[in-house]
């Protein structure tokens, strides 16, 4: 151990809070180093003086004066705090009681009501949809179509322009029969 380490650990050494191994190392250093031994003795002697200073006592009327001050400055504060605490406890108790009551009412109601039958939605009789008969042509045909790129309503609005716009997209029934 060097002197620097000794100084770093001196607070704990004086307060006897060092682990055993460190304590032995510190003691060994004191035995070897005269400067550190002197420093240690100087600190301990000074502390002894301070710790032995006589204790001072409060004046005889200290408690009386304090009591008078408390009566003057804090009268009712303590009671008020107790009352507030009691009020808070009362409010909590009332809330709990009402919650229990509500729970009881709910369970009683659920017990008394008879189980209801399963009600199905009324069935409305409707005519069966007519089956779509597939268009059968005597001759096979291919229908071509070209997307207009527009929704239906603008197409309807501009119906007059349709022949112009869709000049090259006439629907034709192609017949490949030879």
């Amino acid at each position, binding site marked *: 151990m060097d002197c620097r380490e000794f100084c770093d650990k001196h607070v704990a050494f004086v307060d006897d809070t060092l682990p055993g191994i460190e304590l032995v190392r510190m003691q060994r250093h004191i035995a070897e180093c005269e400067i550190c031994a002197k420093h240690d003795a100087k600190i301990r002697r000074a502390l002894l003086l301070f710790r032995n*200073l006589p204790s*001072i*006592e409060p004046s005889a009327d200290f408690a009386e004066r304090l009591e008078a001050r408390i009566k003057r400055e804090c009268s009712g504060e303590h009671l008020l705090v107790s009352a507030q605490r009691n009020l808070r406890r009362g409010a909590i108790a009332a809330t709990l009681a009402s919650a229990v009551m509500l729970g009881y009412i709910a369970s009683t109601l659920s017990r008394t009501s008879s189980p209801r039958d399963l009600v199905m939605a009324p069935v409305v009789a409707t005519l069966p949809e007519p089956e779509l008969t597939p268009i059968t042509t005597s001759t096979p045909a291919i229908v071509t179509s070209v997307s207009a790129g527009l929704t239906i309503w603008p197409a309807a609005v501009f119906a007059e322009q349709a022949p112009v716009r869709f000049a090259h997209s006439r629907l034709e029934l192609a017949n490949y029969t030879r």
Partner: protein
Amino acid sequence: MADIVRKQMVAVEGATVRERLQAMDDSAVVTAFLGGEERAFSELVTRYQTRLLNFVYRTIGDREKAEDLVQEVFIRVYRHLHRFDRSKKFSTWVYTIASNLAKNELRNRSRNPLVLFQTVQKNFQDEDRPLQFEDTTSRPDDMYRKRHLREIVEETVAKLPEHHRNVFVLRELEGKSYEEIAEITDCNLGTVKSRLNRARNSFAEIIAPYVD
């Protein structure tokens, strides 16, 4: 006759409560006070008045003012005890209040040099000081030497920087642990150790010529 018996009963009951309070630890006394037992507060005052007075006195160096500050500590305790976190130590809380009040007092003094001057004057009025250090069987020159030494020690403590002195008094006089001091002074553990080391070194350095 019945009245006398009733009074005696009340007295006996009162004594029992006081004895019971004396046997309790701080936490239980605090609980009793919060439960409405006013006598519990007197028990707390009895336990802490001397310790706090010495702590504040060694910190600010003015006995009269120290007593006023300790009264203020107890007033604050009375007012705010319901807010005290009972998972913590009561003594640490009380010392924190006292430490803060002492710090404020020193700060006010440094802002107002007149107050400082008056305080210094008061400290040097030897007639006002209790002569507890003296032993009547001692010779007059021994008595003088002891009184002189006590004054030197007190003056030396007063010379330490405020934050060093606070830590120094809490450790050396009150025997608080490093952790408690850290909590009271609102510092980390490393700072407490470093301040304590410096305070001890400074104190020993200043007082050494008078002791050797």
